[in-house]
């Protein structure tokens, strides 16, 4: 049963993957727990539950965030996109397809977070955002090429305990249509052919 609204509970509407869900929440409920336990959207994973691993990455108003450090009540009124909402029907998102084609995972637990994060990384890069790997951050320097170093830095909020980073980096590069270093490209192409 839903708890009765009180000073510590609220009836809220969460907009997830374009669908509105009315639910009553204890204010202590994180967005992560609301997605998984209340809306049965278990694609978003709980890893560390303290903002250190990125497994719970979801898009809020188009930006990547960690769902474990947000309260569901504070997410009301925002557009939330989870891994369940990134494909178009049966057609996978290009980032999903690249992860599949290049084996950008091993156990798969961090994968939904990796993919949601990568989708946003590609958007952020396209918007011209520099990163800590960017030599010259001045706008006059122009947007940095999305090199493997740039991808690794931008994806550093998503840990993979299996260590699938090599293929993850390649998958992000492929999805971004980025030109990677020759060595990396060779490996990527071998992976795709295998």
């Amino acid at each position, binding site marked *: 049963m839903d708890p009765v609204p009180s000073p510590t509970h609220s009836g809220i509407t969460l907009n997830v993957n374009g669908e509105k869900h009315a639910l009553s929440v204890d*204010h*202590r409920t994180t967005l992560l727990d609301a997605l998984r336990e209340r809306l049965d959207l278990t694609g978003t994973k709980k890893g560390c539950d303290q903002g250190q691993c990125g497994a719970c990455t979801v898009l809020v108003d188009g*930006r990547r965030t960690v769902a474990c450090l947000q309260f569901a009540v504070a997410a009301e009124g925002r557009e939330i996109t989870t891994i369940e909402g990134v494909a178009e029907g049966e057609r996978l998102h290009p980032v999903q397809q690249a992860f599949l084609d290049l084996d950008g995972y091993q156990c798969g637990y961090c994968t939904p977070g990796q993919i949601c*994060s990568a989708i946003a990384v590609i958007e*952020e890069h396209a918007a011209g955002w*520099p990163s800590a790997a960017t030599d010259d951050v001045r706008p006059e320097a122009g947007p940095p090429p999305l090199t493997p170093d740039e991808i690794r830095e931008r994806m550093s*909020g998503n840990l993979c305990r299996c260590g699938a980073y090599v293929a993850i980096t390649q998958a992000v590069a492929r999805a971004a249509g980025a030109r990677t270093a020759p060595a990396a490209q060779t490996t990527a192409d071998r992976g795709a052919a295998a």
Partner: protein
Amino acid sequence: MREFGYHRAYDVAGALALLGADPDARFLGGGTNLVDLMKTGVERPASLVDVRELPLDGIEPTADGGLRIGATVTNSDLAAHPEVRRRYPALTQAVLAGASGQLRNMATVGGNLLQRTRCAYFTDVTQACNKRVPGSGCPAIEGEHHNHAVLGASEHCVAVHPSDMGVALTAFDATVTYETPDGPGRSPLTDFYLPVADTPHQETVLPPGALITGVTLPPAPVAARSRYRKVRERASYAFAIGSVAAALDVRDGVVQDVRLALGAVASRPWRARTAERALAGAPAGAETFAAAADAELAAARPLPHNGYKVTLMRNLIVAVLTELAEEAAR
């Protein structure tokens, strides 16, 4: 976690009123630190006042050529802003050196300044900590302190302030503006954090019930050539063990203007004024830079397991100033 009430504020007066209505209320910005501390029981607010809808999310040039940054601007938006990148590139670099893309999309400027130390004794409620429970002791001094303070600490607390953003803001003479029920206030960031002394639980000059509304950067032509360099235990997504924000103007081989601030060495971002005085008007070169670094670090009081930081900071200061001087000579 303690149960709590939740309120969303839409204007500053409303936010102050909501906070004032509950002595155990806290402002909630991005939540990247507060929510974590609530989960571990370090913070136990009775209610949260969500300030993310406040109209404080703008970055505006000021009439005198500086920048005014709203308190609810996210780290991401601050780092990506063209005028920040153009006028204060070390500020963009500092912000981008902190946390992860996800956390930078959530975290806000006001919250960054008020984030708490990551000292493992502070974040573990089963341990003593003078910052969390005044008078309970500081186990870090005899215990795990390899990433603790070497400057400005006391026998009561050796924790460091974890901010990267704050180091660049400190170098560039930022002023914090805030609003209270009794009217507005402001404080230079260099005076914003209180000395540790025997009151490590009192961290800032903010009066009770105050809301940070923004940060103002004065014009600083020297900042257009600036750098932030951070050393940490892995290549990305980790707190600093030492960092430097610096700006340098060299003409005819002589230092005309310099700004220098250090991170992860003290309870606050550390403005290196002793080094700046040693550098002003001196010939730009490795010897000058090393002498200035030594002058600043003469006040260092390392603990048994963090003495490396003194060497690290010396080398970091020399390296960053040398890079900036070489850039200026090009």
